């Protein structure tokens, strides 16, 4: 198990490096650089030259990438080409704002979806099941910006309960943001729930037909207890990867949803940095997102190991068997 974690960690470092590499050169391939993008219609040759000079954009691309890597290893992500502020503080602020939406969305969304999944699975074929399944499918097929817009129209404009947008941008305090978190979080729950519900439903259906579930039922265990004690805990396992992907997606800041609510999170920061070609900020966001994906997936795998003893033993047996099965070349060498 320790070896597995070590291997996973090593792969993660490679993943992070690849992510930073691809983002760096993808941005280079985009038309226009930060100087031209900032100046727009005012991008006279003199103005662009002056700005490029200030921003040191004329250095060789590879040299710039290697410098960036070297600095990043020491924890220095540089300064934004646009605002001149430290990238790490900009990105952390945005990330913490995104967490403010993501954490409630995850806690509420995952719990609700798992419960609904178990419920519909247990009542397969009933009106509750088909009703909720259709609802989930509908929610899954509506793009999240439409959900966001509908929520704004109803709960911010028609019945003004929540703010439609965040006004203060990156300066907003947690107090400013709290009421503004509700609608984006609700949007994300709606967008995400369907996947988890459907996975959990089929997993529960499978669980209820297993031999141990049947045995328990024949033994006289009440149906409710069979469901919650015997079936549900095991049925969650195959759903964990689905959950982990959704969690990673949420932590990475959801671009479109944040933009509709003018929410100062990682997604909004990413749009701005792409359209301004603000490379240092984009690089940091890419590394952070990759880190989140890698970590969340690792945690999901570890959780599965903890929850399912079979996976642990499988591993060990496999390892023990290896030396026995391997041919012993040393003995075949004639002496």
């Amino acid at each position: 198990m320790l070896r597995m974690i070590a291997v996973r960690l090593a792969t993660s470092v490679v993943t992070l490096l690849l992510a930073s590499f691809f983002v760096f050169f993808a941005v280079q391939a985009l038309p226009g650089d930060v100087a031209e993008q900032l100046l727009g219609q005012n991008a006279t040759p003199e103005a662009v030259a002056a700005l490029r000079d200030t921003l040191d954009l004329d250095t060789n691309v590879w040299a710039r990438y290697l410098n960036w890597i070297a600095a990043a290893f020491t924890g220095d992500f540089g300064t934004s080409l646009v605002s001149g502020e430290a990238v790490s503080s900009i990105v952390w602020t945005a990330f913490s704002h995104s967490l403010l939406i993501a954490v409630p969305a995850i806690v509420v969304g995952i719990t609700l979806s798992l419960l609904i999944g178990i419920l519909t699975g247990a009542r397969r074929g009933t009106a509750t099941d088909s009703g909720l399944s259709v609802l989930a499918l509908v929610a899954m097929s509506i793009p999240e910006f439409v959900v966001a817009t509908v929520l704004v129209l109803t709960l911010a404009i028609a019945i003004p309960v929540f703010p439609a947008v965040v006004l203060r941008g990156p300066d907003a305090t947690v107090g400013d943001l709290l009421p503004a978190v509700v609608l984006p979080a609700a949007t994300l729950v709606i967008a995400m729930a369907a996947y988890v519900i459907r996975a959990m439903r089929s997993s529960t259906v499978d669980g209820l037909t297993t031999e141990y579930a049947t045995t328990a039922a024949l033994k006289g265990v009440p149906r409710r207890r069979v469901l919650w004690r015997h079936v549900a805990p095991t049925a969650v396992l195959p759903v964990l990867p689905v959950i982990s992907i959704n969690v990673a997606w949420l932590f990475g800041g959801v671009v479109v949803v944040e933009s509709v609510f003018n929410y100062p999170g990682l997604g909004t920061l990413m749009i701005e940095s792409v359209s301004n070609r603000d490379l240092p900020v984009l690089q940091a966001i890419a590394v952070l997102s990759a880190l989140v994906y890698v970590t969340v997936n690792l945690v999901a795998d570890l959780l599965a190991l903890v929850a399912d003893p079979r996976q642990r033993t499988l591993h060990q047996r496999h390892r023990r068997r290896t030396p026995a099965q391997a041919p012993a070349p040393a003995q075949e060498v004639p002496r």
Partner: protein
Amino acid sequence: MTSAIDRRSLLAGALGGAAALGLAACGAPALSVPDRAATGTARGGGTMRIARPAASAAETLDPASSLSAYEYLGAIYNRVVRLDRNGETVPDLATDWSLNADATVWDFRLRSGVRFHDGRALTARDVRYTFQHILDPEVASPQAGTLSLIESIDAVDPTTVRFRLSTPNAEFPSLLTAYQCYVIPEDSADTIGSTGIGTGPFVLDSYTPAGAGAVRANEDYFDGRATLDRIEFFSIQDTSARVNALLSRQVDLLSQTNLDNPTARVVANSLGTTVATVPNAQWYTIPMLATSEEFADPLMRRAMKLAYDPQAVLATALQGTGTPGWDNPVPPQLSAFLEYEREYDPDQARAILKQLGREDFTTRIHTSAYEPNFTAIATAYAAQAAQAGIDLRITNEAADSYYTQIWMARPLMVSYWFTGRPVDQLLNQIFRSGSSYNESAWSNPQFDQLLDAARADTTEATRRQKYQDAQRLVIDDGAAMTPVFGDRLVGLSEDVVNYDEYGFEFDYLALGLTEG
């Protein structure tokens, strides 16, 4: 490069569809928007909240910079002179001005008793410094090119500034009305970007680039105290988010936002919000790159113009909210405007194409979601051109690199400017040979000579005649089409009174909120 459907147009379409359904259901007439915002008595005081699109986190309060935070400038600074509604130069910090016989030396007399927000008195030295700052190559100000004719600036006495010009220019004062020319205190170049110390009707309270900020009324403003106590500015990048902020009454006014027609309907029909019109505020152009193989021939450009009717473009693309342009770049509200309607004759256009051996001429017309009306204008123009046998393929480009990759690079595209340039600057900056803003790369020595002659002419009437002759040349020979001037549809709360904006002028002094 070509994007299928972007989120914004889909949303606008959805909103528009909903509004149209609503309208059809109650049989209401088409969009009618008041010509001018509500006027009336404002209650004293109050805080106005304005949502604006911030250029980027690199924005600054330095007015000379190409990255200035536009909305703040008019609230916290003054210029030496400004433009009135007809494009005439009128006093701001200067009370009057005079010139020598050949228009190479100009003296401006400043108001006395004007103070900066930090208490220092305004003197001629500050004005001198302001223009030295604009002309400093390191600042790379967009106005530096226009003002490069300034040879020297002297502070003759505390209230007199003297400009010496390298070439005569009888229209010189109008060049000082640009929004880069707001007066800053002497030696403030390093700090002005964040302090915003000016002489204007409002004093800076707080400011974050690409974030929120606020200004409060200047109690001893030389022209009387502002109606409002305070204005708060909020940056909202996404247009539909900005509209949502208005509809949910989180803000009172959307600045620099031209609502597309479907959105304007929604705003006009929603409770508590309305739409005001800034007439002819958007100058739409279709530059034909004169250096391109397609449009190098003036005859070809003539055919492209003859082929279309600007009134049809106005009616279909802008639903009539504007004025047909007839390829004259000078907006009709300016007193130097030339009344000249060129011919509309698709048959003649067809004949020219035949004469050139280009009967099956086809090319791309580039457009983008950069501005909500670009694609509508491209479509309307292409439909008109088709009647003369010109086949234009509409090509949608990414908005974020439209002005860096397509503009001045592709033979045919849709572009726009805000109107508000005085006539001399407009013609010199955007049509003169070799100017860095000459988007059609047109070059006509006769036109350049006319502009020089106009500048040297100190007689008002004959000078105006020369600017009008120059307009005629742009219309007949020029490489840029001006199909329409569009009204800007501005979303605002019904509580706002005395909102008044034209060109680059915004009346922050009278702007107020109604009682209650």
